[in-house]
Structures are given as C-alpha cells and as structure tokens.
C-alpha cells in the first residue's frame, strides 16, 4: 500500500505538496474569523472604538479574499494530483497486464483484472483526494481551535478535550460495525444481481420451461434478503447523525453553563464565549471529517491490496534479456516438440495435460489434431507461440527453442485463431488490420475472400466500414469465425494455428477456406484442431491425442489402419452413415 501511495505521482508530485499548503492557508481564515469577531465585540463595541471595528472588518474581508484565492489553488491542485495519481496508476496497471502470460490471465480472471483497473483505482483515487485535504487540515484546525480556546480559558478547553475522543471513538466504532454490515449487504446485492443476470441470459430457457413464477419466487427471496441486510446496515448509519448531534449539544450545554458562570464572574468576556461556541462546530466537524477519512483509508486499503497484487505479479513468460532479433521467414515454419510435458499449475499437484510429446513438422505441412474433449489439443498448440511454457522438454520453431526468441518475433511468426475468438469495437477494416497494420484495402479484401468472408462483408451497407459492436454481437457466430480467420490470414504467418475455429461454419464453406489455405499460404505450416472429420482427412499429418499423449500419428490412410480411436471417430461420422446409405 505504501509503495502504491508513494510511487505513482510522477509529474503531479508538486500538486501533492501544494494542495495541503493552500488548504491550511484557507483554513487559517476560517479560524481567524470568530476571533476577530470576538475582538469586535469585546474591544470595539465594549470600548466604543469605531476605527478598531472598521479595521477588524477590513482585515476580515481581506482574509476572506485570501481564503478564496487559496481555495482555488488548492482545489485545482487537489484535482490535478488526485487525477494524475489515478491516471498514472491505471497506466502502470494496464501496461503491466499487457505483459501477463496466459497463465497469469487465467489466475486472475479477466473480470477481476477489469475491476481492479477500473473501480479499485477509482476508489483509491477518491480516498487519496479526500486524504490530501483532510489528513492535514482537520488536525490543524482542531489543534489551532483548541489552542485558541485554551488561551481564553483552559477550563472550557477541558470540555473539548473530553468530548473530542468520545466523538472520535464513537464514530470509528460505529463505522466498523457499519462496514461489517455492508459486507453482508454487498454479498446479498451480488447474489441478487447474479440472479437477475442469470435470468436475463437464460430468458429463453425460462420461457421454454414456463418457469416465470418460479423465477419470480427466487427473485423475491434474493430481493427481500437484500432489503433486510440494507435495513440493518442503514439503520446503524442513520443513528450516527443524531448521536453526533447529541454529543455536540451536550458540549454546547456545558459551554453555556460553565462559560456563562465564567462570564458572570468576569473570568472571560461575553465575546469570547461567543467565539468559543463558534469554534465548537468547527472542532466537531474536524473530528468527524478526520474519522470518516480514516475509515475511507482503511476501506481503500483493500483496493490497494488488490492493485498491488497485480503490480507485484512477475509475468511468468518474458523474452530473455539477451535474446537477439530473429524474425521467422514465411517458409521456415518448422515445429519440433521434444519430450514435452505440460501442466497448468506449475506448483502443486495439478494433473499433467500433456505427457512426453515428441513430433516434428516440416515447413509448409498441414497438421490436424484430433481427440476427445479434454485430450489436450488446445494446450498443445498454445505452447507454440509460447502462450504457456512447457513444464518439461522443449519446443523448437525454425530450429530455435521458443524460449530463446524475442516474444514479439515469435508471435509475429505465428498466426492464431483462438477457440474463444474476439472481435473489437471498431470497423471491420480496423479489426482485420490487427493482422497487418499497414495493409492496403486490396490486401484486406483478398484476405476476406480467402476466408470466405467477403461475400457477406460486401453485402453489408457500409462494407469494410461496418461497425462491429463490442464483443462482435452484430455478426453471427460463423461470420465472426471467418472474420477472425481473415485477420490471421492477413498476417501471412510462417505458422498458422486454427483452434476449433470453423465450428460454426458449414462444411461447404469450410472446405473452400481450406482450399484457399493451400493456394494462398503454400509455405505456411498449418495446425488445425477440429471436431469435424472432413476438416482433417486431407491433412499431411494427423495427430491423435488421447488423455495428453499421442496415441498415433500419420496420414488418414495410415491411421485408418493403425489407430482404433481415429477409426472410431471416422466411423461415427462417416463410414457408418455411408454403409447404411
């Protein structure tokens, strides 16, 4: 937490120091006014000195103007410092997360990374902003006000010295209780929101099963639980105001009683009593502000911790510092696996997903990988662009260990169409340009044609300039997959990996895409993972994975002879049907 609070001010550091200085200046005025006022009463009015009264009045006006000016300066710098801090922290996090490996991403989960970068940073920023003003101002005002009161009468000051800790401790302990109660509220709120979200996502299921009444009942429970939790938490909070007022009022009564007697005996003057009463509100406000900000600080510590977790994570995959530039030429995409084993959690007992794999692929070959769900197909291809590092053994691309590449060289040589593919907000053109930043429209259109996507893109009203909505919700699953393939093809990589990326494309279109691979990406090594047997039969090599091991490898004909699993898959999809037909 301390590192976060000190490390991200950058060029806004001056604002961090300027703010409290001017905040103090501002509060000096607030403190001076009651004293000046009491002087007017006690010296000016009592002594009949009109000139003195006017002098005091002018001084008060001047101070008011000074206070306004300092107020502007401190407000400006507070805004600058807080936002600068938040902005720097966000950049640091965003940049750091960009370095994360797939393993790091899996560990944190995307949703949690988003919350940490957005709302956690904002909460910390808000806390910082309040702290900047209050942490110095409140104690200062408090001390000065108490000192002034002491100079009038230490006996009256004694009343404050008892009241302040009572108020302070009272607020802190109530807030503690409130915090605990609000954790419960948050849980109930999350539960209710999860309920709603689930219901919205599954509204078709709800309607298909005619479960509206059941869902309503479920929601009523969650909704009522939230309300009850809220009533308990808010119930405590609303008691805080009247309680603080009662303490304040008790102090006022004491001041009237003891102060009044002191005025009567001439120990203090009536103007001074007025001033002491004026300071009362200020002192109590300072105490309240200070305790609130203290609570806010403790709350934001949780956010700070979550942010620090991200920033302190050493990305587990990085280029070696001495790695030389080594771009992979288009026709040199050979891939060799040597005794590769892999498991997702490096520490601990996690199960091995891949076990002792060895095989080699020559440049330009097409390799298909088949196997049941969970057999390790995706894990295998994710190792090639070093999205994960093998636990044992090594992987060579173009004869060099992938760990010896600069990561950007390796990944520009490998094109990947992921299983969960994503398009980004922006036009279709902008999305395809991800593959090659400086591609011309002709190149883009060619890539779209190759991916069998140009037909529907050209039919769209804005063609290449059609806007893709966030998450690509305005194109169908099959269209999305073809756009993603086009994006990867535009890259013209040495190695192209398709991870189950044509599942929503019909077999006809898919076979045309495969033809264009053969035609356009002659030198490229292609890895295909697919459920459909038609996607794999024409591959140069077919790898059959079973439970993380290579069960067998060879061409379609060979495997039909040697691999029972492959034969089974083939039979279930094609052969049996044909013999029936």
């Amino acid at each position: 937490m301390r590192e976060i609070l000190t490390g991200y001010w950058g060029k806004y550091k001056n604002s961090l120091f300027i703010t409290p200085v001017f905040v103090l200046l501002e509060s000096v005025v607030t403190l001076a006014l009651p004293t000046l006022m009491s002087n007017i009463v006690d010296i000016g009015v009592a002594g009949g000195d009109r000139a003195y009264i006017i002098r005091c009045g002018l001084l008060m006006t001047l101070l008011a103007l000074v206070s306004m000016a300092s107020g502007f300066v401190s407000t400006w710098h507070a805004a600058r410092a807080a936002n600068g801090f938040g902005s720097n922290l966000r950049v640091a996090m965003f940049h750091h997360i960009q370095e994360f490996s797939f393993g790091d991403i899996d560990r944190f989960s995307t949703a949690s990374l988003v919350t940490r970068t957005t709302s956690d940073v904002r909460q910390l920023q808000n806390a910082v902003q309040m702290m900047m003003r209050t942490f110095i101002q409140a104690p200062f005002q408090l001390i000065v006000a108490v000192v002034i009161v002491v100079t009038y009468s230490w006996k009256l000051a004694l009343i404050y010295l008892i009241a302040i800790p009572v108020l302070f401790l009272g607020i802190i302990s109530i807030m503690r209780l409130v915090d605990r109660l609000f954790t419960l509220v948050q849980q109930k709120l999350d539960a209710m929101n999860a309920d709603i979200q689930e219901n919205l996502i599954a509204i078709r299921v709800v309607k298909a099963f005619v479960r509206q009444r059941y869902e309503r009942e479920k929601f009523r429970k969650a909704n009522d639980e939230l309300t009850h939790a809220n009533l308990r938490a808010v119930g405590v909070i609303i008691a805080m105001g009247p309680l603080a007022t009662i303490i304040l009022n008790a102090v006022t009564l004491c001041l009237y009683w003891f102060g009044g007697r002191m005025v009567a005996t001439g120990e203090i003057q009536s103007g001074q009593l007025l001033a002491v009463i004026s300071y009362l509100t200020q002192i109590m406000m300072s105490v309240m502000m200070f305790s609130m900000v203290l609570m806010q600080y403790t709350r934001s510590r949780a956010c700070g911790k979550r942010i620090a977790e991200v920033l302190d994570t050493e990305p587990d995959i990085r280029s070696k510092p001495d790695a030389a530039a080594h771009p992979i030429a288009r026709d040199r995409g050979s891939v060799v696996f040597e005794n590769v084993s892999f498991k997702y959690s490096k520490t601990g007992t996690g199960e091995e997903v891949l076990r002792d794999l060895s095989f080699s692929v020559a440049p330009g070959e097409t390799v298909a990988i088949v196997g049941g769900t969970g057999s390790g197909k995706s894990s295998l291809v994710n190792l090639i662009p070093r999205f994960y590092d093998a636990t044992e053994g090594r992987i060579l691309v173009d004869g060099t260990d992938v760990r010896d590449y600069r990561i950007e060289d390796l990944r520009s040589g490998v094109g990947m169409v992921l299983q969960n593919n994503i398009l980004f907000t922006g036009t279709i053109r902008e999305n395809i340009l991800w593959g090659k930043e400086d591609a011309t429209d002709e190149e883009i259109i060619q890539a779209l044609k190759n991916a069998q996507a140009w037909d529907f893109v050209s039919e769209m009203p804005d063609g290449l300039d059609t806007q893709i909505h966030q998450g690509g919700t305005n194109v169908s699953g099959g269209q999305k997959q073809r756009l993603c393939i086009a994006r990867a093809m535009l890259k013209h990589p040495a190695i192209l990996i398709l991870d189950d990326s044509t599942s929503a494309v019909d077999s006809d279109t898919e076979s045309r895409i495969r033809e264009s691979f053969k035609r356009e990406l002659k030198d490229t090594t292609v890895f295909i993972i697919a459920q459909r047997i038609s996607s794999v039969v024409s591959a140069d090599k077919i790898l059959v994975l079973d439970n993380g091991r290579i069960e067998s490898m060879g061409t379609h004909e060979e495997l039909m002879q040697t691999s029972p699993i492959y034969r089974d898959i083939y039979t279930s999809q094609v052969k049996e049907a044909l013999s029936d037909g």
Partner: protein
Amino acid sequence: MAEKRRSIWAQLKERIAVDSVDVNDESIYKNIARGPGPGGGRDFRKPKDTKGTLLRILGYAGKNKGMFVLILVMMLISTGCSLVASYFLKPLIDDYIVPLITQPEKDYSALAVQLLILTGIYLASALASYFTSRACMNLAQWSTNALRRDLFSALQELPITYFDAHPHGELMSRFTNDADNVQMALEQGLVQFISGIITFVGTVVLMLLLSWKLFIITAVTIALSFILVRGVGKYSRILFKKQQSSLGIMNGNIEEMLDGLKVVKAFSYEERAKKTFGELNDEYRENSIFAMFLGSAIFPTMNAVMNICYAVTAVLGGFMTLAGRFTIGSLGVYLNYIRQVTMPINMMSNQAINLFSAIAGAERIFAVIDHDPELDEGAVDLVTVNHGKDGTLTETEKGERTGFWAWKLPREDGGFEFREVQGSVRLQDVHFSYVPEKPVLKGVTVWAKPGQKIAFVGSTGAGKTTITNLINRFYEIDSGTILFDGIDVKDIKKSALRRSLGMVLQDTNLFTGTVMENIRYGKLDATDEECIAAAKAANAHGFITRLPDGYDTMITGNGQNLSQGQRQLLAIARTAVARHPVMILDEATSSIDTRTEKLIDRGMDTLMEGKTVFVIAHRLSTVRNASAIVVIEHGEIVERGSHDELLEQQGRYYMLYTGQSELD
C-alpha cells in the same frame, strides 16, 4: 504562475464551450451505463414527465398516507427545534448571562432552568430527526423492494424480441443504477430537500426578526449565492457529463482489451493497445481534472461571499450595538445564522440534481414495467387426464400425474372439450422476418406426424433455429399457420404450449445451484430418482458422479466449471426429466464429441420413443436416422425426404453429406 493560471482559465473556457455535450445525445449515456464501477450512477437526463413519475414513485412509498404526514410533522419538529435552539443563544447571553455580570450575589438558577429547557429542545430535535430518518429508510427500502419486484415480474413476461433489442447490460442497469437512484432519493434526497427549505425559510424569518436592516446585506449575499450556484452548476454539469462520457469510453476500452487479452497477445498488439489506452486515459484525466476543479471551486467562492457578508455584518452590527440598537447576543446569533443560511442553497441544488436523476431513472423503470407483455390470447390449456373406461377423458386432480396429456378446449356453451395430445405439428406456408423486408422464412410447409423425427439441415443462417422458435411462439409468424394437433398455436395458452414442448436450446444456460437442482428445473416436483434417471438417459450420470460432490456439486457462473459438452448433457437431462410430448433439439450435441454423442443417442432414442421430435444439427450423422430430413436454404425448403431418398436425389443434401467424405 499568472501565465499558468490564465492558461487554465483559457482551457476551462475551451472545454465548456467547444462541443458542449448534447444533452439529448443518448450515446453518451450508453457509455456511462457501460462503465463499470462507481461514477456510472448519476446522470443528467431530464425526465419527460416529472410530476406523473414522482406521483407514481410516491404511490409506491405512500401505501400508508398517515406515515407520510407523520414524517412531515417530525421533520418540522426536528428542523424547528434546531432553529429555536440556535436562537437560544441570544436570550441566554442577553437576558441570563450578561445581567449576571453586574449581580453581586450570583444566582444561576434562572440560567439552569433555561439550559434545561434547551436540553429538552435538543433531545426533541434529535429524536424527531432519528425518527424521520428511520421512517424514510423503511419507506425507501420497501418501496425500492417493491419496485424491483415489479420490474422483475414485468421482465419475465416481455417478448423475446424485447430482449433481442435490449442488451443485458442495459436491463441490468435498470436494477442497479436506476433503482439505486430512486432509493437514495427517497432515503435522503427528499428529506434533505424539504428540511433544507424549512431551515432556509426559518433562518431567514429569524434573521428578519433580529434585524431587518442587517438582513438587507444578507439578502444580497443570498441572491449572489443563488446566481453562483446556478451559473457554476450549469457549467460544471457540462464538464461532469464530458467526464462521465470519457470515463465510459475508457472503461469500455479496458474491459474490451482485457477481455481480449489473449487475442492481443496472439497478434502482438500490446504496444498499440497501450497507445490507444494511453490516449483515452489522458483524455479522461484532463476532463476529470477540470470537472472536479469546477465542481469544487464553488465552495471557496461561496465561502468567500459568505465570509465577506460575515465581516460586513460584524462591523455594521458592532456599530448598531454601539448605538444601543442591537445586543451582543443578537449579534452572535445573527452571525451564526449567516453561516447557516447559505448552506442549504448548495445542498438543495445538489439534491435537486439527485432527485431529477432519480425521477429519470424511475421513468426508465416504469417504461419497462409498462411495456406490452408477450401476446397471449390463447384459451386452450394443457392438462393431465385419466382415460375413462368408455374412452372419455377426465381432467385429473391437481398435482396428480398420469402421463397422459390432453388439450382442454373451451366450447361455445361454456363447457370444455378434451382432445388427447398426439404430437402432430403442422406448419403451413409460414412466412417470417425479424426485421420487415428481410424475410427469414419464405413459405415453409412441414408436417410432423405423431412420433416422427424431423431433422432440419442447411447452412448457417438458413433459418433452422427460427422454425423452432416459431413453434414455441418465441416469435410471431407474419403469415401462414402452425397447427398443433389441429389447433392453431395462437389459440393455445403460451404457458400450455411451451409445457408441451421439451426444448434443448442452442445456448445451454444453467443456473446457480446444484446439479440436481438444475436437472429438476425441467420438472419442479421431480424426485431425486426421476432426476437421476433422466441424467442416466442423457448419459450425464457418469460425469456427474465423478464431480467432487456428485449431484450436489454447485454450478456457478452459467456452469463455467463444466466443459461445454458436459453443459449440453445437463441441458438434455433437464429436458428429459419433464417427459414432454414433443421435443425440440437445437444443436443439442454440437460440442459433444461424436463418440459420446453415440452413447447419448441410445439414451435419447428411449426418451424420444413415441414422441414427435424436431432436430437441428450441423453434423449430418446426427440426423441420419430421422423419419424425414428437411433441407433449408435461404429460408426455403429445397429438399425433403429420408436419408436414402435424398442421397439418391444427389441434390443439396448429397453435397452437404459428401462434403464430409470428400476424401473418397
């Protein structure tokens, strides 16, 4: 410094003037709504019908009118008491303390009595204010509770088209942002607003009583404060809106880039992503600095105005006291009132914004509640029946399940006629389009006789799923008829129609809860044994027993802890448990590998026995043994027949089919 300061002002002016955000530009608010985390809450959309909406909210709150009046009275007591208490300073000093100075024998009893009275006033004020908050809290919490419940209920009845047109995030923000704003307004806003007005008016009256001459100065100050708050408020809202919109855009970018981080890495897009984010972040920071500055600059300004007023009043009041036309106590009280009188102005202006934003939120909630529910004018119900010895059908008692279903048709004479559910589904010349002018289905005619398995095949987007969505009336057909056992589906109650159809949808959505509960969703009163039997039939029993807690394993986040294939198996089991007379399987097995699918098929065969079944599948091996295969292209039926017949025709089906075996 002067140079820099001027440039800040120049920038500020620029920011306010240039492309001031169009208040009616809805897209801004979309971004605001999308931005996660705090700050997405407040917006400045003006409500359309302020009065009507406000009355309707109060209708939720005001089931108990007496409570309203009581709250109002309590609020008057608490604010009045604190006003009186603050006035007490004057008599205390002037009449009870100052005279004591000259008394030789000090008698404090009068002062003590006064202080006791004051104690009473203080206590009354505190108690009344506590009561007000407590009552408002209850009111606010329970009315929001009711509001959310009504909203949720209304949502359940909206047609699917509504959900197509409104993203989940938008509907969620009805529950989160909008309902929260209403709650906040009821809990604090209204009270603070009303008590602000009372305090303001009361203070002004007391000031006038003390000295109308001094009040002239105060009046000028108050007027100035009003102008300042209004003027600055207007500009700071513009800036605040800009800030919110850039925050929404930035958060959207973060969300998208982190969601797609794996793609970013696959394309080595990191540096470009950093650059874009950097720009958005800078933009937001600058907007936020200026918004925050202008938003808080009002405070030093108001303070200065008030302090100057304070100084002037102190001087003039001093003179008046000197002249004997004012007392020290009055001066002290009056000066305190100066601090007090400007405070409500700023507060009320803030609360007014909150109130308006709550009303606007409530208006959006009511818009959902008032939206037309799904059309359902059907009268035919689905009931379980007993076969009488003479072949007549009689409706069973509530809850009794015989396994025999019948349609209960109202007769013109007011009685009912029962017709046994057989499962004949007939589509005649059905036309349909999601958007006008873009037909999705063009004259589709299909007749599924009882017990037949009809398979729909065709390329993506050909309209296969659409057909099933029309049978269960998720969507309304444009023309043509769909007959179920000879009854037009439009005449069947929607709930009855859907209860007769077992659907396994393309997207398998599971619910938070145990595996058992998820299966039971298909038939709420199913016993554990029935659920397990269904799971066995769907071939899900094997993997379920291997889960850490078997059937009691919790499913969270739409089944993230299961593989896609396992989710589909559960979805099949969920449908299987209900034993519907007609089944619709839409890509139910797409993510299940073919070997497992064969195993399911066996289970499914027993499930489907004697039932009419509609199947949609990409994989032709899945549809091979259907009684009839219907090939759809571009919304039209291009071929139909059995597997063998279609292969012989060597048409579209043959092409699709042999596409799978092009090796031969």
